[in-house]
């Protein structure tokens, strides 16, 4: 356990160190958030709400969307692929804890670090500059009760776990294929759409949403968004969290199984 905490701490410190690139990244985030908020406002036009989402909530959504990019590694994560292809995995696998657990710990550090300097900053920028983004009188949406806040926190943790697990699983393809990068990339492309990262899933036709629900992706960003924006009733919140947990467990199991098979293959092939 101590080893895992140490890993978390190291990853955390490493990610906090890149200042200039960090500022550039933040500027990028804010600009895209701005753009998407403007598109939202235009989309809504005279409407007050769409599928239960008010304009304020929709604009808040654009900020949330930018905030999750860091912690959930929305654009790319190829660490395991790199380790496998470079051969580093051989020494890593000798470490005393499971390979999955090893990367899990590191990702916790990474996610926390990015959350603190990137996500929080973006959200604060949104809170303070909401006037620039929204019609007069609109306010940044915040969860209304402590229970809701707790649910949001829980949803974030579960979302991160689901996200890590599918990213890990996609990367495990590296044990089989030298073109794992392409496979991982494909997974990411689908995740952008199906996770509700581009637009809230509610905005899509029902049949599209049903298809997306067959994948783990909605149980990351979309779950957080729906709970945060207060779009769900109590039982619905519990159901959402439950689904996240279920997917987390299922993916974790799949990862461990795939890992075992992959390692066996590596050992047989002699690395």
């Amino acid at each position: 356990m101590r080893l895992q905490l140490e890993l978390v701490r190291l990853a955390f410190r490493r990610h906090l160190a890149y200042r200039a690139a960090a500022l550039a990244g933040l500027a990028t985030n804010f600009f895209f958030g701005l753009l998407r908020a403007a598109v939202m406002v235009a989309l809504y036009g005279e409407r007050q709400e769409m599928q239960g989402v008010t304009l304020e909530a929709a604009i808040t959504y654009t900020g949330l969307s930018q905030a999750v990019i860091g912690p959930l590694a929305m654009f790319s994560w190829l660490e395991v692929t790199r380790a496998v292809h470079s051969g580093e995995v051989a020494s890593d696998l000798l470490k005393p804890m499971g390979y999955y657990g090893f990367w899990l710990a590191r990702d916790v550090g990474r996610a926390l670090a990015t959350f603190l300097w990137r996500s929080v900053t973006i959200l604060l920028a949104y809170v303070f500059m909401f006037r620039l983004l929204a019609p007069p009188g609109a306010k940044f949406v915040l969860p209304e009760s402590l229970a809701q806040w707790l649910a949001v926190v829980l949803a974030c943790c579960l979302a991160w776990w689901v996200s890590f697990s599918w990213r890990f699983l996609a990367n495990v393809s590296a044990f089989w294929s030298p073109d794992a990068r392409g496979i991982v990339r494909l997974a990411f492309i689908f995740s952008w759409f199906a996770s509700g990262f581009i637009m809230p899933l509610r905005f899509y036709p029902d049949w599209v949403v049903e298809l997306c629900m067959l994948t783990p992706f909605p149980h990351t960003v979309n779950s957080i968004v729906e709970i945060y924006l207060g779009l769900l009733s109590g039982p619905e919140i519990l159901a959402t969290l439950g689904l996240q947990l279920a997917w987390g467990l299922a993916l974790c199991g799949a990862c461990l199984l795939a890992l075992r098979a992959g390692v066996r293959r590596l050992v047989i092939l002699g690395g």
Partner: protein
Amino acid sequence: MIVELGLYRRMLGATVRSLMQHRVSFFMQLISATLITLVEFGALVLVLQRFDGVGGWSIGEVAMLYGFVAASFKLLETVGAGFDPHDFGDQVRLGRFDQILLRPAGLVTQVLAGKFDLHRIGQVVEGFVIFGVGVALAGVVWTPEKLAYLPLVFVGQMAFFAGLYLMGSTITFWTVDAIEAMNVLTYGGQEMMSYPMHIYQPWLRRTFTYFIPAIFLNYYPALYLLDRPDPLGMPAWAPFIAPLVGLALLLVAWRFWRFGLRHYQSTGS
């Protein structure tokens, strides 16, 4: 700036042959890239259907905007991949730019010929298809003038993105840190130009009218093609300066590039 076409063709051939050595990887990238645009545009269409267009523009009209700027930007990304700031920065850092300086051939020729993102070609085609479909849906009334102007707009957009690329690459002579911010201008620019720009807040719109005149690159030409009135009250020649705007930016970028080269030669890497 003289781009030696003969040598460019030959060096480009070498680059493409190198690409084809990794065939599987290439095809996977081709599929990924094509899928990205499909997914992005698909999401846009689904949402526009829900909301009945945006800013008073129909799906077809938005598709025109989206498709055209996608085609121009992706084509520039394909052909100008050597000047992608991220890639160029790597070249400088790894000393490969020095190799280029040591050959008796044009620098721009060599950089351009050294990289070619052929896998984006699917996206270029998609852009044109989306534009075509948009034109059909929007019921554009074609005139010879409009048809003649279209390629000029395309060149103007490509020149604009080329200028951004060149500026980003020049910056890597000093530092690699600001590259991510360049994404705002390129990807952000493409996304911004994909929508009718009157929907943006006044301050944002003004920035992209007077500071970086992107509004004249896609939106105004589209107004002209669609025979739509100008809601912003710009002069009558506004739709027709797209190629000038693009080339002006490219010119500015070129001067900056020459300046960056001089700096590189006095301080090394």
